């Protein structure tokens, strides 16, 4: 394997693809005793060649491979692709469809943040209780998804021009019940994770990322907002129904691991408020514009940005007068955050036992960075 040359008095260990906490990647650590001098990320273990596959799929079929980039948060990623196609081909979307899209995106965001908490609790001292709480608390959300779209994780529910089906009878009441249940559990999570003495000892002051470094190194998502930079695509360029929903962009000033956890917490609270507002105020109307499954494009290009749970996703689509796109370029948030993770060892002093804590605060999903 071709890797950079290591210094003679450091030991290189490989935290490999088969490890309970590493995920699907290999990370090489150059250590001397307990202190980590250099981190090298070896990505590519889940590379599937999605950008090449999408040149062989029609516009309707293209949502399926692209949704499998992050399984916990498929709504936001599918919406990024669909928004780019609609912009390139000049398709107008009715208003009720935009509100339903926002509802599904917020539910996906809560799903993904709960997953990130479970992993972070497991990394910081193996609290299997909190990990199992998160799997249980995701069940009402997955049941809502199943009733609306038919699938639990990957829905294929968006299409260029709207959404497939309308909300069923009584769905708005169910959303409000789930929102109240999750708000009660919120207090339990705060006490168990954030105000926990062990968690505070391990996480306060660890892996500090100052705002100028975060911007220069290209951080995105809760990593950037945990360093005090208020940047959120839903506020800069409102897409779907975010222009009408009221929410705030959450930031923290402490710039360490605990700040990023608190940012994710508060974002769940904002998403619950948005779900309640959508359930109460959704307008009526049609849910899809008229499009045909094998529509031909025209010569255009479009670049769309959406805010997924991990950060900002940009999709650049080049279309021609064929049923397939010419080129799809996907700029994933985790690839940007992995570069930040590599440089954290040079900016701070990190011990080997802190590596799972730091990496779970960055919240990477390696299928997203490898595409």
């Amino acid at each position, binding site marked *: 394997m*071709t890797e950079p040359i290591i210094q003679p008095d450091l030991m290189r260990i490989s935290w490999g693809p088969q490890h309970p906490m590493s995920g699907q990647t290999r990370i090489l650590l150059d250590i001397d005793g307990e202190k980590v001098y250099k981190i090298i990320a070896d990505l*590519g273990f889940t590379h599937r060649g999605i950008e090449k596959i999408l040149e062989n799929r029609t516009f309707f079929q293209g949502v399926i491979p692209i949704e499998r980039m992050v399984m916990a948060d498929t709504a936001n990623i599918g919406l990024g692709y669909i928004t780019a196609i609609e912009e390139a081909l000049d398709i107008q979307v009715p208003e009720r469809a935009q509100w339903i899209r926002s509802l599904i995106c917020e539910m996906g965001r809560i799903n993904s943040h709960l997953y990130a908490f479970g992993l972070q609790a497991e990394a910081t001292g193996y609290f299997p209780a909190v990990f199992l709480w998160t799997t249980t608390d995701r069940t009402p959300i997955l049941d809502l998804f199943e009733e609306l779209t038919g699938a639990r994780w990957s829905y294929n529910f968006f299409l260029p021009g709207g959404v497939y089906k309308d909300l069923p009878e009584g769905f708005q009441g169910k959303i409000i019940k789930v929102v109240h249940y999750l708000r009660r559990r919120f207090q339990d999570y705060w006490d168990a994770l954030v105000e926990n003495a062990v968690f505070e000892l391990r996480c306060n002051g660890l892996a500090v990322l100052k705002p100028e470094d975060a911007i220069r190194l290209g951080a995105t998502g809760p990593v950037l907002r945990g360093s005090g930079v208020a940047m959120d695509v839903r506020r800069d360029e409102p897409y779907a129904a975010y222009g009408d929903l009221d929410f705030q962009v959450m930031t923290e000033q402490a710039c360490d691991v605990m700040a990023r956890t608190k940012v994710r917490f508060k974002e769940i609270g904002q998403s619950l408020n948005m779900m309640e507002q959508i359930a109460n105020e959704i307008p009526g109307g049609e849910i899809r514009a008229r499009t045909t499954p094998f529509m031909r494009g025209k010569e255009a290009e479009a670049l769309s940005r959406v805010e997924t749970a991990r950060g900002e996703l940009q999709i650049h689509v080049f279309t021609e007068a064929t049923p397939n796109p010419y080129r799809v370029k996907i700029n994933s948030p985790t690839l940007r955050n992995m570069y930040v993770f590599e440089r954290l060892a040079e900016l701070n002093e990190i011990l080997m036992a802190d590596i799972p804590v730091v990496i779970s605060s960055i919240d990477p999903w390696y299928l997203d960075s490898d595409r």
Partner: protein
Amino acid sequence: MSEDTIINKIKEAHQDQIESATIMRAKRLSIVVKRESFVEVAKSLRDTFGFTQPSAGGGVDYPTENRMQMIYYLMNLEHRVLLTYRVNVPRDAPKLPSLTQVWEALSFHEREAHEMFGFEFEGHPNMIPFLLPPDWRGGHPLRKDFKGEGVTA
């Protein structure tokens, strides 16, 4: 400042060095620059015009016109404008200076563009295999004339 002002200022400052500078739509700009002044214009974009946050970099292959285009995506934090910074290279000699001297976070993206298209970045600090297996023998996957399964040892 709106996008018109930013684009006009960039056009004034670098008249002979850019081939075209257009506004794609609200909050999206596009600049195609000549290969000789690639790094110089990039440095001025970072220092004078405030494009300090690098997002990504990727390529597009145009085999019929015998060129490949490398695109970098840069963000201006003050006005929240996204710029696509493009350069055209001939398809049989795709050599470019590396932009890691200006924004160091583009290192991963240049490694991936090298594997997928065959761009050669001069001055990149760490050009080793990134996403494909290290014993890959099959060619450059994202080119339009790649129609094979992967070949490994």
